[in-house]
Each structure stands twice: as C-alpha cells, then as structure tokens.
C-alpha cells in the first residue's frame, strides 16, 4: 500500500460486479472517496462511480400508504413482525451480497418457515437443473488460460457482460502452454453478430430458439449418426459436421455459455445438451464447460445454500426442513402464482426484473428491501433499509464463476449511519426469534 499525500492506493482489490471477480484492481481512495480504479473495466468503473449516487440515506417505512423516514430499530421491528406473521414469505435476491450475509439469510428463512431463493432462478438455474442430470466437466479459469487452444462462447456476450474475461482468462490471455491470441481459436455461437462475435475467428449465427437442435446435431455427428435434415438451426447441416471436426481436433476445448442457452426455448434442456456434448467430447479430447455467472456472488449464494441446506437455490422451509423443486419453490413462480404473502428482498430488484404479472403480485404484498441504492423495488416497498456496498464499504467472501473463493475488501467508510447487510439481517433474525418465542 502506497500513501501519497492524503491518497491511499489499495492493491489486489476484488471487483464486486460480475462473475469474473477480477482481483487485481488498484483503488485510490482519498478523503473517504474512491478517486480512481486501475484495471477496472467499464462496468466496474460504473459501480465504483455509483458509490455516491442514488443512495438511500435512512430507513423508510410506509405508514398509511406514505413512505416516512424512520430509524433502523423501527424498520427492523416492522420487518420482523411482517416476516414472523407471514404464512409463506419469500426471501429473494442474495447474489450481490456476501456469503456472510447469505448465511444469515438461510437461517432467517428457516426461522420463518419461508422460501429463500437467489437470482440463479432467473439466470443460470436451468444450468444447475441440467447438472443434476448430467454432471459437468469443468475447471478453474486458470486452466483455460494455461491450456485452451479452442474457446467457444455460446449464447453470451462477454464484451458487454464480462469485459475482462477474454484478456484475463481466455482468448487474449497468456498461459504456461499457450502464449496468447495466436495460439488459440475463438468461436462464437449466437443469434446476432455481437461485439464478441466480431472478435471471433468463426461466428456461427443460429436462429433464435434453436440451440438445442444445434447442440444435438453436433452430438449426433460425434456419434457417427447421419443428419437427415438439410437445414438445422438455420444453417446447412454440413456446418455441424465441420464444427464437430474442429471440436475433436483441438487439444483442449472450452465452452463458455450464457443466458442465450438458459433463457431461450428449452431452457434446462439446452444446457443438458451442452453438458452432454462436452461429456461426449471427452472421449476424443479434453473438453470443459463453464457458465458465465453474471453477478459477483451468485455462485457464492449457490455454494452457501448448498452446504447449509443441500440445495443451491429455491429452498422451501415451510415444512421445517429444506425442500427443493424449481418451478414450484422458485421466486418467479411463487410470485406469479401469488403464493407469497410477504417478501424480503436483498441486493436485487425483482419488481424491475420479473415479468410483469409476477412483479405485480409482488408489489401487492408487503416487501421489505435491503439495498444500498434506490431501485424500482424500493419505490414500492413497505420497509426500506439502506445497506453498505459490499466490496467497497464492507468486506465479505464471494465466489468467482468457477467456484474460487475470494475476499472483498473494505475500501472506504459507508455513508453516515448506514449499516452492513449482515448487521441488518442479524437484527431482523434476533427480533423474529424473540417474536416466535413469545408466541
């Protein structure tokens, strides 16, 4: 750490934005402000830059339909009362906060007999559903950097969503056995010619909603089956024969996939096909696959939930023990059916991100929100509790997209009086326990 007048340079900072969790950031702080962020991509810069914008300064409660400023004590008591009395509360979000906070969330959900779900549900959940069936041949990102000579981005656009991914971990990185871009081949499969596709050696444009067919076609070629159709996924079927040849002739291939696979028609079946393809490819050459996790700690939410309850998301505690059935116990479905009668939302904005009918149902029940910033959800919440920004104003553990755990640092003090998630959640839990004991 260097000190230059009243400036401090903090090194090896882990970025709290996307699943890359780049840990080489150098943040200059001065007078309790972030002055600059070296090595930070555009998204990261925006996050550090947003540290002072749209912050919620004090807790709010809605009394007689009007939002009124209050204090933490009242807000926490109000929230605890709602949660303790709710028949089927939903605790949603979790992906943009620390593991330490996520653990308290699980305990709270268990205490109130509610459902805890994280944004995996609306992101890479389908991938996990496929993993339950197939498993997954994967690695940490350094393995890609050291060994991969063929890298495929399927249904994702890292230039926009994971800007440093290619330079730090894949096509443009330098590894022990691959010295850089020249020693690697890059293929992009997508429905449009994205910024990432423009950088590829080969861009394969398939029709929307045809990923399952495309992946299956490659698998069929791999198994020596004949493709009977002339066109598959909008391409001549011979294209898949060619692609299969490229895949088996590499030394070390990796598929990175994104929401193009998880969200389009087929959902979990698309990833099933991708995981199966990679598994099959291992009989010919070394091949791995990895989901491009969007948020900096959605992987952490899966890990924490899984070791504490056995399941990675959509966990229902209403029977007193963990139950898991995505589609039934998942956030969007519960909201769409109007089953939940209260919601605790943390580090997420479901009113903005859920399809409208689900958002509408959610907004008609009492919502308690914990967030540093004003969001669409805070604007319709019954109770709003501001929190610190983890990774900037508070430390915490996070998991990178490949499962590598890292510690976020505290760089500056939070705004006056604002508490960390962990403290708010602990206080709510304590209050809920007291209420439950009193019953």
């Amino acid at each position, binding site marked *: 750490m260097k000190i230059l007048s009243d400036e401090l340079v903090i*090194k*090896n900072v*882990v970025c709290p934005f996307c699943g890359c969790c780049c*840990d*080489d950031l150098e943040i200059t702080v001065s007078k309790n402000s972030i002055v600059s962020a070296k090595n930070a991509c555009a998204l990261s810069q925006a996050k550090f830059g947003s540290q002072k914008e749209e912050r919620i300064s004090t807790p709010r409660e809605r009394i007689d339909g009007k939002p009124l400023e209050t204090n933490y004590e009242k807000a926490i008591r109000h929230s605890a009362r709602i949660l303790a009395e709710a028949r089927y509360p939903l605790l949603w979000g979790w992906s943009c906060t620390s*593991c330490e906070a996520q*653990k308290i969330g699980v*305990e709270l959900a*268990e205490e109130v007999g509610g459902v805890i779900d994280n944004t995996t549900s609306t992101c890479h959940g389908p991938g996990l559903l496929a*993993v*339950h*069936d*197939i*498993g*997954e*041949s*994967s*690695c*940490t*990102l*350094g*393995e890609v*950097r*050291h*060994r991969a000579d063929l890298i495929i981005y399927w249904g994702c656009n890292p230039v926009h969503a994971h800007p440093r991914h290619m330079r*730090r*971990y894949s096509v443009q990185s330098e590894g*022990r*056995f691959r010295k850089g871009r020249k020693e690697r081949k890059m293929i992009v499969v997508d429905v449009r010619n994205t910024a990432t596709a423009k950088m590829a050696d080969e861009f394969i444009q398939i029709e929307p909603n045809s990923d399952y067919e495309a992946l299956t076609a490659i698998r069929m070629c791999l198994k020596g089956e004949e493709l009977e159709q002339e066109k598959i996924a909008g391409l001549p079927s011979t294209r898949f024969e060619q692609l299969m040849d490229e895949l088996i002739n590499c*030394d*070390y291939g990796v598929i990175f996939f994104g929401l193009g696979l998880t969200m389009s028609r087929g959902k979990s079946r698309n990833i099933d096909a991708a995981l199966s393809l990679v*598994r099959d490819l*291992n*009989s010919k*050459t*070394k091949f*791995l696959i990895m989901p491009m996790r969007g948020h900096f700690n959605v992987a952490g939410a*899966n*890990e*924490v939930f*899984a*070791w*504490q*309850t*056995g*399941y*990675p998301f959509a966990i229902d*505690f209403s*029977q*007193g*023990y*963990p139950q*898991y059935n995505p589609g039934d116990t998942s956030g969007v479905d519960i909201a769409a059916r109007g089953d939940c009668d209260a919601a605790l939302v943390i580090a997420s904005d479901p009113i903005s991100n859920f399809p409208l009918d689900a958002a509408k149902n959610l907004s008609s029940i009492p919502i308690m929100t914990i967030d540093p910033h004003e969001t669409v959800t805070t604007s319709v919440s019954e109770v709003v509790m501001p929190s610190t920004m983890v990774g900037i104003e508070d430390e915490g*553990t996070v*998991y990178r997209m490949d*499962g*590598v*755990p*890292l*510690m976020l640092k505290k760089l500056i003090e939070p705004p006056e009086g604002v508490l960390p998630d962990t403290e708010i959640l602990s206080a709510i839990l304590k209050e809920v326990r007291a209420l439950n004991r009193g019953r």
Partner: protein
Amino acid sequence: MNDELIIRNGIVVDPANDIDREVMDIAIRGGKIVRKASPSAKIIDASGMLVMPGGVDIHSHIAGSKTNAARVMRPEDHVRDFERKTALTRSGVGHSIPSTFTTGYRYARMGYTTVIEPATPPMKTRHTHEELNDIPIIDKACFPLFGNNWHVMEYLEKGDVDGCAAYIAWMLRSTKGYAIKIVNPGGVEAWHWGGNIRGLDWEVPNFGITPREIIRGLCKVNKILKLPHTIHVHPNNLGKPGNYLNTIKTMDCVKDLAEEGRAAIHITHCQFTSFKGEDWSTLRSGAEEIANYVNKVKHVTIDMGQIIFTATTTMTADGPFEYILHQLQGRKWHNTDVEAETGAGIVPVVYKRKNFVNTTQWAIGLELALLVKDPWRIYMTTDHPNAGPFTAYPRVISWLMSKKARENTMKRLNQGAVKKSNLPSLDREYSFAEMATVTRAATARALGLKDKGHLGIGADADVSIYGVNPKEVDPSNDYRAVRKAMRRAAYTIKEGEIVVRDGEIVKVIEGKTFWADARVPDDMEMKLQSELSEKFQDYYTIQAENYVIAEDYLARSAPIIPGGTR
C-alpha cells in the same frame, strides 16, 4: 460457573493408556481430563456403560468444493433423508453427502468428536474452511493437496527439497492446512490434458518428474518440517485391477527415509488400491500381500476404506479415476480441474450385494483390518462417502468384532466372490480395545494430536459413553447390541460439555480447526518469497495476497506448532 464433570463408574477402554475395561471415574474440569473433581461437579452415572475417548475420524470428505459440487449435483441424495429444525438444531439433509449442520450432529450422535477433511485444493481452501466453520460440535482439520502442484513438482525436479519445504510451510500457513496430502501424484496433472499416470516411474508430461520422486520429495519435506502427521497418500492406479503391486511399491519407495518409531507414509482407503487380477472378471483380493508387507515393516500405516452396500457418492481429487468410473458405469460425472494444483471428480455409485466386484471389495477392506496385526497402524474408515457414508461406522465395527456378523452379511453376497475370498477363513475378532484403537486412539496418535484419542490427565475432555457393557456383552455373538449402542451414544462429551444425550443433541458448541503453523528459517523464507512473487501471477489467476487465508477466518483457530508440544 461449574464446568466440572465426573463420569462415575464407567467401564473405560483407553488403549493409549493401557486401560482395558476397567471400572473407573473420569474427572473433567475446564474442558480437560483432570485427576479429581470437586464435590460440586455434575455427575454422570456411567454404570454398566462403555466409556471411550471421543471418536477421531482420520479421513472423511465432509467439506469443500467437491463435497459441495456433489451436493448440488445430487439433490436425489438428500430428498428422503432430512432433519427438521428443532429449538436447538438447524435443519438439513443427509445420506451420502449431508449438509454441514447435519454432518456435525450425526458425528456427535455417534460419539465422534474430531473429523479430518482429507483433501482440499489449496486455491479453494477458503471454501473448505467456510464449510468447516459451519460444521457444529466436532473439531476438525483439512489436508491440502500437493501431489500435482506445479511449484512442488518444479522444486523437486530441481532437487531443491529445502525450497520445497519452505513452500509447503508457507502453503500450510496460508491455507490453514494440517498435513501433506498426495493424490495420484502426477496423474491429475496428466489428466489436465486428458491422460493419467500408471506407474511410480512414469514421467509427468511437461514436468520431468515421476510419482516416486514426488512422494519421496514430500516425505523428506515432511521430515524437515516435522509435521504432526505423515504424508497421506492415495496412490496411482486407484481402482484398477492389479494395483496392489503399485501400492506395495509406493509403500516401499520411502522405506529408506523412515525415522525410528514414526510412520513415513500413510496409504489411505487401502481397499481401493489392494486389487489383484487382470480385469474385473478376474478381480481378487490383494489384501494378504498388502498386509504381509505392512506387518513386515514399521514405517507404513493404512486405513480401510470399507465398502458398505448402499447407494453412495464417489468423490476424489483423482480426476482420471472418476472419469473411468463414469465410463464404466454410465452414471453422471462431475469434474473440476484446479489450476496449477489438483482436481476433483464426482460420480454416484451403488455397491450391490450380488455384484462380484463389490463383494470382493467388501471383503478386501475387512481382510486388511483382520490381517494387519498391529491395530495402531490400521484405521477404520469408509473414505466417506466413497465406500460408504460415515453413519455406517457402527456396522463396520460389528464386522470387525464379530465373525458371525461377517458371516451373516456374507450369506447375502455374491457367493462366487465369497468363495474366492480369504475372509470366511479369518477368525480374528476385534476386542473392545482394538476397536477403540482403530477408531480413536491410533488415529489421534497418527495425527499427532497429543490431547485426543485418550483419557489421560491433560487430554481434551472429548468422551463418548455407549449403552453397552463391555464386560458382559460378548461382541462376537451379540454384535447387534454393540452396533445399536454405537449408533447413538448415551453421552457425547466435547470439551467437557455434554452435547449428546441418548443419541440426541442437547447442546451445540463450536469446534476448533487445527492447522500446522509450519515455519522455516528466515533465509529460506526470504528466498521463497522472492521466488513466489515472480511465479505466482504466472501460475494463478488470483493474486498471492488473496490466496492467503487469515487466521480469523477460522471460527476457532487452533494452530499446532510442528515438532513442539501443543
């Protein structure tokens, strides 16, 4: 506050102190065994009950990246085996990959008080510690994996054992690990290219070193650092018919490095590497050959890896083995290669009674235990969950102590395999003292945990009391009574606190995490730091600073100073 306890009139089995079914009192104060307690001590009436040190499990995959990947991959494992939340305990799920709270409760209910997670990838060991922090009651430690580590292979290839020692010391301090774990040395690095290593003298691609050199080098490092436990080895060729020869060679390859009175190598889950035969149809037990070797020498310890007939999950750092298992059986397969270090694979498995191979495997584990003469050098494990869940330990105990129990089980197995096995002819039955040795006294000693595994003055007050009278019950005939009693401890005492009563959790406390605070002289340390700062960024995608785990990350840190007293 009165933290005194007297366990009155129990029938004590404490092999480390040569106590074999003596009626005596055990006094506890301040979490330790003491000579006497004051009259105001709380009394536990242990009349007619077996009193032993708390169980010490030397090898059980309970925490970390691959354990959790297995949980995620296998929701079906949890669905029917769950525990509800109670006023005292958290809810959770069980069977072969229990959730963390459930893991702690289930071990405690069986009277176990210390459990080792035997294989953690150093780069992800922060994850292991997060899970260990969430396992209640029991004390724990974890073994970082080194057998495929780039730094290690390079140091040893150059012959720089001192440099390697400084590196290992730094790694143990940085990852808060306890011992040197070696899994399929060189083979996992080969697997990162899709290959494997099939012999001690094969060369690891791109590294110019052999498994023999890796094992010997790390054995020397272990001696230099005076680590509390010997090198803990999962040899090459695990799961391959005929591999017993390689196992013996592996044990033999460090014989000349052995120090008087100390083990130089521990072969773990030895059942999986005691296969004779050319292929699955000619599979036989190599247990006799292995046991003969172990009996002849003094420098080797092993643990069983006993098969249980149930559906369970295999999970190991031996990535290539898991891929082969997946191809053999077709079940789903999870793989994670960890950069510059190691890997992991996970495949569900079912051990079937009527299956020739599984029956042979089952027999091998027991043959090892019955043929190795010195109970201080063979430990009872199921390599949880690879050969079976740890909740099956009472069943294994009944097989060890009763020929009848073995015969009863054998009746229902593949008779072709039974006929070809030695096991029916083995009459040996473990005594209570021997059972206590292989489940607590010997394992604690092997781990260098001087205050565990015995009930002498100054020992940790980790005590298990079982509802079986070892002076009256004949375990050979009445093995069911022994098994039943071992399933649910009448009392489990941890650090002087009663945590289990009649098989139920009555108090939840937090256990300690042991780690080896290994150090080298300053000049060696400085040399290491300069080498690391050059190489670290080339090898890893995280910074060295972020690789290191701070001590306060552990819920209750308990460093052991190697070579010294605790």
